């Protein structure tokens, strides 16, 4: 990590327990994460993993049971939401139904006590930023879902918060609009320079938009890293499984050299593998490994192929083709290869096929 990059939000050992006694729900369990200034940071995880709880703690709607939340070094964990320079874009937008688009956008500035002229100028600027100038005086019930989304964004951005929190803001939009808004959000983030903390359960959204991703499960952060790190080098089984499609195999560790190791595959052949950062497992141990379907190619079995299996199924997907193989130990293995203009799939179902691993295809998981 770069030390000269300033931390915007520092979540330090935060726990959140709802209720008490035997019914208590541990929504967050000793979570720590430092989110940098001007970063597009995503909290990714399935529903109930605690990502929205963490966002609500940062916004101030709930207060942590234990731990600190610092904004530029100042502990804000027990400040009410209206005293935090942090704004939220809500999942259902939560636009005020009794106000116009412009009144909604100006509300925050008005509450901050800005003079009328300044509020009007800011509202104008925000309307242009989200390309909604023509609809300034509409009621919020008279505009479409995508437009409401833009108003919600403009409303949260208008007071120039230090951090913008986004709680699954795209989940209510249809696919095409969602793609557009993904690009729009990236643009807004780089234009405003505001730190975005984005909550989603959609791994594709997380991969395409984020500078960094924190993958959460059961109230804990399992891994923090760039999209590429998280995808290519998942540290835990849950992360590998949640993000993208993957093959899980068991292998034996041979030689460990720094961050890589040689493993013996179920087929008995050796392969180079990356180790999860910060771990130094002993040689000779059984470990779980993951191989992404697109990090392999299929070939006729030879000394160059690391694994062999019987081809069960071929599914054509347009840009690529999925091959389902049954390995010797009866595990399922999926290979994905891009379709080329010239070639036909060279294999038929039922054939014995070899698997060639690309460099860095094998990732060892933490136990």
């Amino acid at each position, binding site marked *: 990590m770069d030390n000269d990059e300033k931390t915007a939000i520092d979540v330090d050992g935060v726990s959140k327990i709802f209720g008490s006694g035997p019914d208590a729900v541990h929504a967050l369990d000793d979570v720590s994460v430092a989110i940098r200034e001007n970063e597009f940071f995503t909290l990714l995880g399935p529903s109930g993993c605690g990502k929205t709880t963490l966002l609500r703690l940062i916004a*101030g709607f709930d207060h942590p049971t234990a731990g600190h939340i610092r904004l530029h070094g100042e502990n804000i964990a027990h400040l009410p939401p209206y005293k935090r320079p942090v704004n939220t874009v809500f999942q259902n937008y939560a636009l*005020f139904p009794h106000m116009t688009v412009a009144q909604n956008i100006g509300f925050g500035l008005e509450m901050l006590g800005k003079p009328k002229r300044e509020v009007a100028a800011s509202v104008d600027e925000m309307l242009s930023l989200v390309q909604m100038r023509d609809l300034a005086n509409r009621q919020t019930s008279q505009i479409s879902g995508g437009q409401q989304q833009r108003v919600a964004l403009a409303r949260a951005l208008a007071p120039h918060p230090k951090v913008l929190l986004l709680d699954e803001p795209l989940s209510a939009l249809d696919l095409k609009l969602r793609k557009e808004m993904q690009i729009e959000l990236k643009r807004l983030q780089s234009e405003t320079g505001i730190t975005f903390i984005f909550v989603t359960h959609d791994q594709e959204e997380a991969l395409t938009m984020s500078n960094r991703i924190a993958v959460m499960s059961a109230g804990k952060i399992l891994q923090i890293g760039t999209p590429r790190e998280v995808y290519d080098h998942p540290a835990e089984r849950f992360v590998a499984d949640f993000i993208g499609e993957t093959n899980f195999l068991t292998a034996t560790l041979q030689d460990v050299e720094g961050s890589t190791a040689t493993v013996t595959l179920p087929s008995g052949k050796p392969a180079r593998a990356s180790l999860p950062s910060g771990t130094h497992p002993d040689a000779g141990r059984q470990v779980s490994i993951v191989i992404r379907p697109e990090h392999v190619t299929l070939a006729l079995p030879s000394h160059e192929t690391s694994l062999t299996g019987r081809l069960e199924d071929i599914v054509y997907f347009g840009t690529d083709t999925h091959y389902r193989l049954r390995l010797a130990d009866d595990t399922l293995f999926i290979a994905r290869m891009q379709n080329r203009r010239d070639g036909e799939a060279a294999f038929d179902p039922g054939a014995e096929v070899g698997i060639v691993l690309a460099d860095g295809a094998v990732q060892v998981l933490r136990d």
Partner: protein
Amino acid sequence: MATDAQTAIVGEIRRSRLLTLPALIVLFLAASGPLLVVLLYSFLTAGDYGGVKWAFSTEGWQSVFLERDIFDDTVSVADAHLSIFWRSLRLSLMTTLLSLALGFPTAYFIATQPEKTRNLWLFLITIPFWTNLLIRTFAIMEVIRNRGIVNTALMKLGAIAEPIQMLYTDFAIMLGMTYVYLPLMVLPIYASMEKLDFRLVEAGYDLYATRWRVLRRIILPIVKPGIIAGSILVFVPSLGAYVTPRVLGGGKNLMLGNLIELQFGQGRNWPLGSALAITLLVIVMIALLFYVRAAQKGGEHG
């Protein structure tokens, strides 16, 4: 071809409207018939022993606001009637405000409870409703009379030496009416409040609005229709209240309802009673008109 279908449908609707005619006639007569009788009586001459004589007279209407001296026939403003009008209006407005002050927090409290317990709270609110009005009113009397619960407790505690006279005052009437009509305030406000998306409240806090400002700028405008409905539901029956002012006002502090009753009873002046009843109706209509206009304003935003 669409037009053919449409004409068919329109014809169908016309025919079904005809079928509702008998019901409409019954409703019209039942609703406006007695009212027309009251209107007619207000323009007749009072009978010697109650009832009316069939002779046209505006005496009833004149007596609403004016009184004739028995001895020298001079006409002056009916102070007694005006003070009763004024007391009715004042007590009804104060009852409405007091109900609002008590009912709004109550409705807010219920609406923010977990869904399971809300029905229990609503049930508790409506329990007095299942109880006979007279019994409820006498219960209030028991609480506030000179040797009632409040005065006895205060005297035992040594806070006061002499009982405070609460019964048979305007205060007693207002207290009684507030107690009786409070559920009518709570229920409509709760109905609006329940529909209020509490994420809007969070959005308000998030956008730097303090609690007070969230209440004034977000919650109040959105639940306004409920507040107006509740206020009307409390104001209108308060204005015509009869039992509560009779029991708790002790027959000295009359309200409109008692005055009207008096004309049909001891006063033996049915035309005046009828004119007063119509006047009360007009006041109620004006209040309703205000309600409809305010509700339409709210509707534009909602």
